[in-house]
């Protein structure tokens, strides 16, 4: 049984409903769900409280778009060098943090510091990133469709299908990782790092791996986010972005594959369902977060232990 099967019925949603708002909320849910799944791997499974995924999310958008427009290649091809950039950055930051054995709160603060440094660079590198104004993304990803050649992915329904497919792929990959020996090593590190080390687990290497996976997923989500919303801005690298993903994971349920997606849905969807002004919407967001943390410490998925079994 795979958690990805639970996502398959969602392909039917566009057939049943043409409600633009609903589909848009779901698209954002899927994109942010990918980000949250990545964070769940490094925190929920390997126990490392990173604050870098927000920066990776933003870099994903910026790097993909800049590479695409400078080299004139397609969205999918541009993602390859972008992933190389993310890998390098993850290696650098991860190496510094893990080599000096920073843990818990200290790890969180140093990764946060690196994320802020990157945000400041993006914010002030005006020639390339256009500073605070951000970049308008007019290109769209294309796919090859039988009989019609290369088609641009534009409009709500195609994006719905694209993001859902990517989410399914990410779910399958993370499940493979988590269920393998890698996932068991992550759990060992989370539960007792010294013990894991004495058992012969190279904790440095596995922490690096978890950190890198999280950042790669975050960058993938960031690229999709930028190209779907047509707009990339420095706020996408902000601390708030990191914190949102953490909230989604905790809300949905830590340490389960689909928990983060449920959390992403609740935090993206609920403030829109209730029609409020922008200020009240932010307040609702905060209130939902507080209530869920205090009332459901194991997250929404934790309430359904049967689900936990499947996921």
């Amino acid at each position, binding site marked *: 049984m795979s958690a990805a099967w639970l996502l398959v019925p969602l392909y039917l949603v566009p057939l049943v409903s043409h409600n633009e708002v609903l589909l848009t909320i779901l698209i954002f849910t899927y994109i942010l769900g990918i980000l949250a799944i990545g964070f769940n791997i490094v925190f929920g499974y390997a126990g490392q*409280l990173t604050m870098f995924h927000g920066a990776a999310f933003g870099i994903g958008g910026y790097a993909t778009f800049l590479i695409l427009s400078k080299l004139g290649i397609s969205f999918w091809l541009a993602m390859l060098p972008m992933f190389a950039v993310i890998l390098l950055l993850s290696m650098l930051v991860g190496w*510094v943090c893990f080599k*000096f*054995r*920073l843990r*818990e*709160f*200290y790890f969180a*603060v*140093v990764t946060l*510091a*690196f994320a*802020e*440094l990157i945000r*400041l660079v993006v*914010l*002030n590198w005006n020639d390339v990133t256009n500073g605070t104004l951000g970049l308008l993304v007019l290109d769209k990803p294309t796919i090859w469709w039988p009989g019609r050649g290369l088609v641009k992915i534009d409009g709500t329904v195609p994006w719905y299908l694209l993001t859902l497919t990517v989410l399914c792929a990410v779910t399958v990959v993370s499940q493979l990782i988590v269920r393998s020996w890698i996932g068991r090593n992550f759990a060992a590190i989370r539960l007792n790092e010294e013990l894991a080390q004495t058992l012969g687990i190279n904790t440095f290497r596995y922490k690096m791996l978890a950190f890198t996976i999280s950042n790669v997923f975050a960058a993938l989500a960031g690229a999709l986010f930028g190209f779907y919303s047509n707009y990339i801005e420095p706020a996408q690298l902000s*601390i708030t972005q990191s*914190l949102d993903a*953490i*909230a989604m994971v*905790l809300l949905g349920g830590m340490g389960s594959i689909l928990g983060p997606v449920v959390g992403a849905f609740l935090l993206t969807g609920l403030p829109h369902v209730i029609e409020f002004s922008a*200020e*009240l919407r*932010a*307040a609702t*967001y*905060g*209130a*939902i*977060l*507080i209530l869920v*943390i*205090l009332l459901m*410490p194991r997250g929404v998925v934790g309430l359904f232990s049967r689900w936990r079994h499947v996921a």
Partner: protein
Amino acid sequence: MTQVILGQVLNGIIVGTLYGIIALGVTLTFGITGIVNFALGQFMMIGAYAAWHLTDVVHLPYPLSVALAVLIAGLAGFLSDRALFQFTRNNLVNGLLVSIGLISVIESGALLLYTATPKNMDFVLSGSWTLGAITISRMKVVTFAVLLAVIALTWLALANTWLGRATRAYAQNPEAAMLMGVKTEMLQVGVSVYSCALAGIGGALYAGIYSLEPSMGALFILKGVEAAILAGVGNLAGALVGGIILGITESIGALFLPTAFRDAYGLVFLVAILLFRPSGLFGGQK
């Protein structure tokens, strides 16, 4: 050039004490309740807006407004502790998330009440002192003196009173302190409220110098946490020194290197310190 540098150092010290007062709250809360209250920046904002409102709208004298603003921030801290933080004791991640939720709620409240337009308080203490070629505004000097006094008194109280000894004992060994008759629940509430009141006084004094925006809290909590870690979490006098070092690093950094990266210099310094002294500059508990 020496004078410019000296002026920047002075500015750094004054901003640094503001970081320091938040850092003191961060360190105290972390030592006693086991969480980092990221909403402390918002309590500072509450103090700042309360002082502005009482001075410019109600027309109370500024010192009285500051005192009332501290009370308001403390009261808000008490409410937040009873409603939220009493359930997140010693749970770092839940405390973090609850305080993030609280940030959204408080900031939206401030936006609804006072809109996003920056508020400038009328000068309560105008003019400046000149020392050689360095001029420094009087309000900044007063702010510095008051914050320094508050931090020094806190430090003295912790070193010399029964309550202070109880607090330090609890930070070192909660169970032993409990066995010695320390009322732990009251201590935790007290420290939580005191940290918010400290943030409140920082905010109330900030209102006399700079303009206010509902989003001002985010910057200060980050600097406060940086300063607390720089000094070594759990080190009270270090929190002030950490704040001042951070303030000076930023001012001097901004003088010689691009100003746009002002916030980055402190971070780079912090990362460097953590790598070579993982428990902060002055050791402290870890």
